[in-house]
C-alpha cells in the first residue's frame, strides 16, 4: 500500500475525498443513511399508529410513563457529542491526529453516557411492568427507541475501533475517509433522536 507521509503543508484540503475510495465511501455512507431513513420512517409510523393502544395493559400511557428531565439530559448528551465529532473533523482538516483521537474519544464518552441513561430508562420501564410484550404500545415504543439505541451501540463500537486502530498510525488518505464516514453516521443518529425526543417524549407528555 502507499506509504506517503504527509505534513500539515502537504495534507490536501479535501483529504477525506481525495482518493477514489474516499469518494466512494462518502457516497456509500449516504446511500446507507437514505435506506436507514426509510427504516426509521416505518418504525416511527408504527409507533404513532399504536401509541397508547392496547389491546390489553392500558394502565401505562405516554403521559404516565415519560419523564422530561431524563429525555432532556439524553438530548443534551447526544447533541453535544455531535459537536465534538465536528471538532474531530476540524482537526482532521488541519492534519492533527491527536485532536482527531481526543475529540472522537470524547464523542464516545458522551455516547456512552447517553446509552447508560437509555438502558436505565428501559430497565425502569420493564421493572414497573411495561415490558416489550405488555401491549401494542410497548412493543412499538421499544422497537422505535431500541432501534435507535442499537444504532448508537453500533456507532460507539465503530468509532472505538477506529480510535484503537489509528491512534498510533497517524492520518493518511486511507483512514481519513473512515473517520469522515463515521462522523456523518454519528450525526445521523442525532438527526433521528431529534425526531424521537419531539415525537415520542414531548408529544407523549402532551398526550
Amino acid at each position, binding site marked *: 500500500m502507499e506509504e506517503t507521509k504527509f505534513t500539515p503543508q502537504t495534507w490536501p*484540503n479535501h483529504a477525506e475525498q481525495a482518493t477514489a475510495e474516499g*469518494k466512494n465511501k462518502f457516497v456509500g455512507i449516504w446511500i446507507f443513511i437514505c435506506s436507514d431513513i426509510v427504516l426509521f*420512517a416505518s418504525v416511527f*409510523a408504527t409507533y404513532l399508529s399504536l401509541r397508547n393502544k392496547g389491546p390489553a395493559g392500558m394502565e401505562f400511557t405516554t403521559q404516565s410513563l415519560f419523564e422530561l428531565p431524563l429525555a432532556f439530559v439524553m438530548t443534551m448528551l447526544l447533541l453535544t457529542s455531535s459537536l465534538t465529532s*465536528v471538532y474531530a473533523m476540524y482537526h482532521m482538516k488541519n492534519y492533527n491526529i491527536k485532536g482527531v483521537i481526543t475529540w472522537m474519544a470524547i464523542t464516545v464518552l458522551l455516547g456512552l453516557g447517553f446509552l447508560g441513561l437509555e438502558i436505565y430508562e428501559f430497565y425502569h420501564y420493564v421493572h414497573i411492568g411495561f415490558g416489550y410484550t405488555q401491549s401494542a404500545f410497548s412493543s412499538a415504543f421499544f422497537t422505535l427507541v431500541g432501534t435507535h439505541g442499537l444504532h448508537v451501540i453500533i456507532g460507539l463500537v465503530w468509532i472505538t475501533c477506529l480510535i484503537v486502530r489509528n491512534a498510533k498510525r497517524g492520518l493518511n488518505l486511507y483512514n481519513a475517509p473512515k473517520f469522515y464516514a463515521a462522523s*456523518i453516521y454519528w450525526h445521523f443518529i442525532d438527526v433521528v433522536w431529534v425526531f424521537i425526543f419531539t415525537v415520542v417524549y414531548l408529544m407523549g407528555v402532551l398526550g
Partner: protein
Amino acid sequence: MGHHTEVQAKTKAQYEYDRHHNAVHMKKQVVNFAIMIFLTFLAFAVVVADFSPYLIKPFILLLAGIQVVLQLYSFMHMDDKNGHHIGVISTYVWSGAMIIFPVFLAFVTVVWW
C-alpha cells in the same frame, strides 16, 4: 482501490489561508450548535409551560424540522459544494423523504386499533 494521489506542498500563504478558513468554518459550526441547543431548549420549554397542545404540537414539529435541516447541511456537510456527487446525494435524500412521507401519513391516518 487506489488511495494514491499527487502530493503537493502548499505555499505558506495558501497554508495559512486554509488554516484560517478551517478555523472560520469551525466557528460557524459552533454557532449552528448554539442554535440547535436553543431550539431544543425552546421545544422543552413550551411543553413545560403548558400552552394549548394544538399550538405546541405544530410548533415543536417545526422546531425539529429546522434542527434536522441544520444538522444535514452544516454538520453532515450537505452544504459542501465539493462533496463527491453531492447533488445526487441531496436529490436522493429529499426524494426518499418525499416517497416515504405518504406511507407515513397512511400509517398515521388509516391504521387504528
